[in-house]
């Protein structure tokens, strides 16, 4: 929207935005765009940086516009669960510290962080991104446990998409050393020289939508848009078009047809994300 704006107009716009945020928003939505210039179906600029934390076994930093999430994966030993002696563990944890937004206080994890952690745990479980059997070293005795810590550094909406992408990129970056069990001493011997990448079987990608005024769907909401929205929807899809998760925590109703539109947008988003990640990983290979 190119206009010559004089000073009083800018003043009026900012006042209007503060006093009547919903009306301000509706004016943009009527023109099928948003205040930051995006279309309704357009994502913010996505950037990913893989392997930045050298002390972690795998790491990734994802930026979705201003929303920044960093994921660090640490691998440790543990005894496998008694009801599944040939499986390891993947333990995700999402942390929303006060530094990312003024709405969070320090102390035990708030509801949003817990819900996000549960969401990531569900995505890992449902999509079978890693076969837990691959994490087993010696059945019944020793297995890997992957602690995936996702920390939000800047909260500007759409935290679930950023977390899912960061987790996927970090897991692709994880290298586990070879472990052999010495028969005589029954101790594990770690060979740090030989490291193997994890076998990532599927690539789940999350696409979030916000529902406005019960009818309009916009993709990748910012913090302000999430606050004004009447409902949110997150779809997690893998490369075959299978859905791992359809997360719609209440909010205004959606018809089956609207869901179908969301599905097709999720499919295109998956292609964009996969392409970006493949490019980044290819650029890292010579190292």
């Amino acid at each position: 929207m190119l206009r010559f704006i004089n000073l009083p107009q800018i003043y009026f716009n900012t006042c209007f935005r503060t006093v009547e945020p919903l009306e301000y928003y509706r004016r943009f939505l009527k023109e099928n765009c948003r205040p930051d210039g995006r279309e309704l179906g357009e994502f913010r600029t996505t950037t990913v940086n893989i392997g930045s934390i050298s002390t972690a076994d795998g790491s990734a930093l994802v930026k979705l516009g201003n929303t920044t999430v960093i994921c660090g994966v640490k691998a440790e030993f543990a005894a496998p669960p008694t009801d599944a002696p040939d499986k390891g563990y993947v333990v995700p944890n999402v942390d929303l510290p006060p530094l990312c937004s003024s709405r969070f206080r320090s102390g035990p994890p708030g509801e949003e962080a817990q819900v996000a952690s549960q969401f990531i745990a569900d995505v890992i479980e449902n999509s079978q991104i890693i076969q837990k059997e691959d994490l087993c070293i010696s059945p019944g005795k020793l297995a890997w446990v992957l602690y995936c810590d996702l920390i939000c550094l800047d909260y500007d909406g759409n935290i679930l998409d950023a977390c899912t992408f960061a987790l996927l990129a970090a897991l692709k970056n994880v290298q586990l050393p070879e472990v052999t069990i010495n028969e005589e001493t029954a101790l594990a011997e770690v060979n740090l020289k030989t490291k193997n990448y994890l076998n990532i079987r599927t690539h789940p990608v999350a696409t979030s939508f916000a529902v406005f005024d019960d009818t309009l769907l916009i993709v990748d909401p910012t913090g302000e848009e999430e606050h004004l929205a009447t409902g949110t929807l997150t779809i997690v899809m893998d490369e075959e078009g299978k859905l791992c998760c359809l997360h719609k925590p209440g909010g205004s109703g959606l018809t089956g047809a609207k869901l179908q539109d969301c599905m097709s947008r999720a499919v295109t988003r998956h292609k964009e994300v996969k392409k970006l990640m493949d490019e980044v990983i290819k650029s890292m290979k010579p190292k």
Partner: protein
Amino acid sequence: MEGTMHADAKIRAETGTESGPRGPGCSLRHFACEQNLLSRPDGSASFMQGVAEKSREQLIRNTCEAVVLGALHPRTSITVVLQVISDAGSLLACCLNAACMALVDAGVPMRALFCGVTCTLGADGTLVLDPTAKQEKEARAVLTFALDSVEQKLLMSTTKGLYSDAELQQCLAAAQAASQHVFRFYRESLQRRYSKS
């Protein structure tokens, strides 16, 4: 508006105790306990286990918030307390139905009624509505929907497992048909109740 899974529980009050974060070898989920909550009984305690409970509370709360006309009751807190007496599968759907009936019983103004429907997909693609606990465990995917009574729109959805887009639409259609039965039951039970008085 709060939703809790146990009678009169205040989540994470200062007087309560909490266990530490769950390590990988521990078979119990994270739990929190608070005692002496209720003034009438001689002793009372609330037990909260796991992040899954918080997630379910958020789902139920957001569904209720979408239908309740909160603007008619400013500065009011509506607390929905759900006590699980027995769990034989389809727990979340049952909680949603109970919450809706309780809100109607309380006379809270709502823009629509809502109901919960659970649907499972077997390994071969067979659809089962309102599964038992055993069927849920054996299913490839479990989908729970909350639908409104006016146009059967999807208010809330939470899913477990892997399924295709076409299967989702199939489940949604089946859930919408099933929700008619639930709404008819609501209507009949309310009619029966008010025709006596």
